[in-house]
């Protein structure tokens, strides 16, 4: 009799769980698979770009990168004692967006992406639809310094890799790869870098005006102001962010956002920074969660034993 009753309760539980699961799978798993385009990740391999065919020489690369009229005419390499020729705001005024410091490029960006970027920026960045001979990309392609173009490019990439640090932070990765277009207000970061604390309000406001001016240049260059990324890690799925960073055109055809060309490690660091901002409680959640769940498992077992003892007098 008692056994039968328990069976009945389990059948009812089965029915309840079954229908709840159908609803869940329908409105979450299935509906989202229909609503969101699935894009296969290419694991940051950039298969459309050719691999480097030559072995680079960093010493010759240095001459090419830092020579007259070369990369450092616009880009700084702070770590090598070469500050950017212009401050961020003036650079944005001149080029539309502040050109990145090259100190991290060798680790942050995939080498074949860098090589293509040097030769043919719009192809590497996948923004050919935005620029033409009449309105060229602000970064001119490198046409060669008189020798073998592929060898020279390989030398430049080798130099960038030789100066890149072995260790770098999530924040540095984000600052170099994303922050020149995207603000992170939760991390107090803008296109001008970290927003400092000022003693006087007029300085705070003056800095704010500079940020707004930077954004005006950026918005004129990009067509609209790129969104703040403070909560993006929770506002998009992981697979969306990965495939969007790999190739923005795969999700939004015609978007002004360039391909970033991150290495897998670089992308992981960027995602890490996005998580620090948008999901700051992740570690606390995971370390507390199992304890709370375990507490309730024990609670349930004790409650069951108590119920059994109370019900013994009823049946």
């Amino acid at each position, binding site marked *: 009799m008692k056994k039968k009753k328990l069976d*009945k*309760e389990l059948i*009812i*539980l089965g029915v*309840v769980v079954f*229908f*709840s699961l*159908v*609803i*869940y799978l*329908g*409105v*979450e798993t*299935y*509906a989202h698979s*229909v*609503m969101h385009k699935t894009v296969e990740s290419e694991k940051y391999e950039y298969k459309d770009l050719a691999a480097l065919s030559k072995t680079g020489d960093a010493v010759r690369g240095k001459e090419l990168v830092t020579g007259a009229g070369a990369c450092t005419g616009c880009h700084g390499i702070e770590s090598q004692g070469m500050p950017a020729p212009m401050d961020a705001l003036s650079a944005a005024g001149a080029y539309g967006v502040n050109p990145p410091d090259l100190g991290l490029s060798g680790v942050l960006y995939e080498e074949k992406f860098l090589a293509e970027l040097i030769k043919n920026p719009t192809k590497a960045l996948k923004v050919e639809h935005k620029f033409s001979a009449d309105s060229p990309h602000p970064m001119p392609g490198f046409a060669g310094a008189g020798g073998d173009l592929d060898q020279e490019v390989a030398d430049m990439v080798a130099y960038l890799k030789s100066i890149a640090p072995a260790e770098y932070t999530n924040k540095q990765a984000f600052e170099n790869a994303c922050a020149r277009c995207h603000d992170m*207000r*939760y991390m107090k970061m803008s296109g001008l870098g970290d927003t400092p604390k000022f003693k006087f309000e007029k300085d705070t406001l003056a800095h704010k005006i500079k940020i707004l001016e930077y954004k005006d240049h950026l918005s004129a260059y990009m067509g609209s102001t790129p*969104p703040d990324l*403070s*909560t993006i890690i*929770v*506002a*998009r*799925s992981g697979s969306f962010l990965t495939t969007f960073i790999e190739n923005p055109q795969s999700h939004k055809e015609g978007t002004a956002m360039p391909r970033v060309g991150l290495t897998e490690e670089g992308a992981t660091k960027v995602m890490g920074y996005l998580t620090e901002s*948008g*999901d*700051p*409680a992740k570690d*606390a*959640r*995971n370390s*507390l*969660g*199992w304890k*709370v*769940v375990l507490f*309730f*498992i024990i*609670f*349930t*077992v004790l*409650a*069951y034993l*108590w*119920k059994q003892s*109370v*019900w013994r*007098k*009823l*049946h």
Partner: protein
Amino acid sequence: MANFKKATSIGDWFDQRLGTKKIEKIMASEYWIPKNINFLWAMGMVLAITFKLLLISGIFLMMYYKPDVDLAFDSVNYTIMAEVGYGWLWRHIHAVAASVIFLIVYIHMFTAIYYGSYKQGREMIWISGMLLFVTFSAEAFSGYMLPWGQMSYWAGMVITNIFEGFSPEIAGGMLNAPGLVEWLRGDFVPGDAFLTRFYMLHVLLLPLAILGLIGLHFGALRIPHVNNQDGEDIDFEVESKKYLAGDTKGSKVMRFQFDFLSKDIFVLGVFLTFFFYLVFYHFTFALDPVNLDPANGLKTPAHIYPEWYFLWSYEVLRPFAKDPGLVAFMFAQVAFFLIPFLDRSPNVAPANKRGLFAIWFWVMLVDMIVLTIMGKLPPEGIFNVIGGVAVWTFLGLFIALPIITMLEKKK
């Protein structure tokens, strides 16, 4: 004046003044519950506790939330999530509980329908329960506005638009309410006035209404007593006397406290284990990613959909043109209230012992689930066809209910 004696204990002191012993008997130790029930009868307790979780987490969230269109989003996503100690925990509890409470409400409702717990004197239990469902829906909707994300804004826009009423051409414009939408919003589009009034509704007026209705819902149980899983007509007078006389095994009833409560608490334990698993490890279903983008009136999201628990009634609206859609939608809101009167059979029994009604019940359940899933999917192609069929089935089921229950044989 009553005759007060020197109290023999603290309990006695209170009893002489407040009648606490009598209250305790009425509410707990001599509140009689039938024995032939299953764990579905514990859903009331599960709901009460989930509501309490919402209330407590809501109070903590309220301490940091800012009902201002410029501050709301960041007060939730930055202040509460990053700066306030355990703010994230309160928010997750609040969001997950708000979603899960509807799952339990639906289980509770379908339990009542299955066992016929809305007739033979139990009509007011059902009606007060449906009133709770409606106020909870309003509470959920108003709460959904508060984080002021993209879905808050756009769902607010879509739902308040419904109050425009019928097209002005219908019935000489009598069913059209010009200006009502703007009056509700306090603006032409959802804005600061809109957000602040929904905040007031969410934290004051609707919770007050809910607390009152919970009292009514409990009170409505008092006279007809709670139903049981066999639809058996139990003489509570006789059975409770048997229990008090010592025949606890022979009596068909048991005390609420602690006989039934011990089972309630066990079921609650199972529920809370599941609940906190969701809170910590599986919460995205309750925190829609679209709503984690700040509200932007110039950028319509690709898909606008309500939270899962409103999807079925949203789907009822969708396959039709504006005016018939509104009729169908209003019908769907009212139809469940009428179930005690649409069911013409006097039999109180589980659906599987009621012939055609058994088919009606399962078709209704499956149809509601189909409506729910179709309500989320984009209205195109085959989904439109399935959704349309499900809506007509839904409407047809309510029309069929009086007929099939009239045909039902009396027990």
